[in-house]
């Protein structure tokens, strides 16, 4: 197991290197000169030249990349062109906010999505099944940023129960995490339903029922345990979509996370920051996939990692 984790971690290195290389090359092929942007419209050519030298932009491109990698090894992602702060420091400051939001959202989504999917599968074609499947479809088709704004209209503008944005108390977390959860709960409910439907038609479920076991026991012990693998897969995949949704949700609620950081950096053409945040997002996603793989082994003893 331990060896497998190490192996998987090592295997992420080429992917990350590839991403960093692609990003690096493409960012440098852009029209527009980051040194000019940084220096401002009024700067003299000499001042622009000084900044270009400071950024190392006057060196050959492969040297720039090698330097970038060497610094990366020391967790140095350069300095933000906008705020002059180290990129890693800004990312570090905002990472906990995004992680908090994501973890809350995925927990909420599992808490509602899995039971809803089970109930729908146990009573297929009943009213409750239609309710679950149609609300899941609505959830999948709804723009997450619109839902967020509508929640603000109801709970902040009309009822005035909760703040419309920002951070501070637990009240600030409620609407953003609900919004983000709605985005994934639909996928989780759908997958739980179809996975459970498949398992419930298996012979061992019939056998368990024929033995006279209580229905609740059959559903949780015999069916759910076997239906879990696809559910876990979809939860893992949804975590990735959640990171994408976080960008939108954080914008709606002025939540100071990584998503907001990346959008602000794009709008300000802050290349070092764009590069850093994208790399961190890629790393997060890879880590989540690794965790999902390991959970498989815990849930299904037939899966072993040698």
């Amino acid at each position, binding site marked *: 197991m331990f060896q497998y984790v190490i192996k998987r971690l090592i295997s992420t290195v080429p*992917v990350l290197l590839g991403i960093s290389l692609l990003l690096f090359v*493409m960012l440098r092929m852009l029209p527009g000169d980051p040194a000019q942007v940084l220096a401002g419209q009024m700067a003299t050519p000499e001042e622009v030249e000084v900044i270009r030298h400071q950024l190392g932009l006057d060196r050959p491109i492969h040297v720039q990349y090698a330097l970038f990698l060497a610094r990366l090894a020391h967790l140095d992602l350069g300095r933000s062109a906008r705020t002059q702060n180290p990129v890693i420091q800004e990312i570090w400051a905002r990472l906990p906010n995004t992680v908090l939001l994501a973890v809350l959202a995925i927990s909420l989504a599992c808490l509602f999505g899995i039971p809803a999917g089970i109930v729908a599968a146990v009573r297929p074609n009943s009213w409750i099944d239609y309710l679950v499947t149609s609300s899941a479809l609505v959830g999948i*088709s709804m*723009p997450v940023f619109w839902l967020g704004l*509508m929640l603000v*209209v109801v709970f902040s503008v009309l009822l005035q129960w909760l703040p*419309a944005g920002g951070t501070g108390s637990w009240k600030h977390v409620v609407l953003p995490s609900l919004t983000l959860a709605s985005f994934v709960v639909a996928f989780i409910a759908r997958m739980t339903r179809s996975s459970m439907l498949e398992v419930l038609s298996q012979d061992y479920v019939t056998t368990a029922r024929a033995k006279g076991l209580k229905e609740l026991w059959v559903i949780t012990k015999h069916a759910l345990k076997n239906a879990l693998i696809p559910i876990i897969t979809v939860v893992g995949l949804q975590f990735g979509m959640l990171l994408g*949704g976080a960008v939108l949700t954080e914008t709606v609620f002025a939540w100071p996370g990584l998503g907001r950081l990346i*959008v602000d950096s794009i709008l300000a053409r802050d290349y070092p920051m764009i590069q850093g945040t994208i790399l961190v997002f890629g790393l997060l996603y890879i880590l989540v996939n690794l965790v999902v793989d390991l959970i498989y082994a815990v849930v299904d003893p037939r899966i072993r990692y040698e």
Partner: protein
Amino acid sequence: MSEVNATTSLAGEEAVGFSPFRRGWMKLLRNRAAVFGGLLILAYLFTALTAPVLSPGDPSAPNLMASLERPSWKHPLGTDELGRSILGRILYGSRVSLLIAIGVVAVGLLVGVPLGLVSGYYGGKIDFFIQRITDMLLAFPGFLLALALVAILGVGLKNTVISIGISMVPIYIRLVRGCVLAVREQVYVEAARALGTKDVTILRRHILPNVLVPIIVQTSLGMGTAILFAAGLGFLGVGVQPPTPEWGAMLGSGRAYIFNAPHVATFPGLAIFLAVLGFNLLGDGLRDALDPRARG
């Protein structure tokens, strides 16, 4: 929604003797949800085609005297911060989002399908190479990939299409490759090869028809995703730029007036939702009707 329910599967049995596509079509018509989705899409196409007739005049011309008006007879959905009719802008916005969705799916299909065919059919080094690039693209969840590409390419309509299009390419590559692997070793393909048929002909005549159904389903779902992603980029201010009436950007600017004029942000979101819902319903229905084996 992916399971064939009792009524639709019965329709399939009754229809034995018809061609598979005819049978699928009949099943699709019996699926009320899919028909509703189809109607939503027809309404969407209709507004996109007839926007200049339904709402004459320039949708972007400001009229500051009438800013942030609530819905009325003159402006059924109210006006935005520059006094422009929200209904008019939503109608024109359907053209923008349709244009983007078609462009995105075209990029995905034109790049993804050939690469998937080649990757699955030839295998070996070329397959390895294409799959590693796919891995790299898939290392990012869809919307983030599109956002990252926008960061590189810059904002605007054309770059929105290219960015979202590229973010869909790996999905098509994986889908087509998987199907090709499944049919590559079939006897009829082997027979064609034994007869000395050219690879291009085998791919076109014997393999492509077999991957058509999943591609059609993915295209319907892909249109919905494209509309959603484009609206997301527009909302963040990195997609289609004002004053072009784009649904996401309208929502984004409406956000500032959420306290005193919530209608500005409400209606464009409803338009996005209905269009995406239409494509998702139709896509699910198509999958149930044409490809009952597929689940998920």
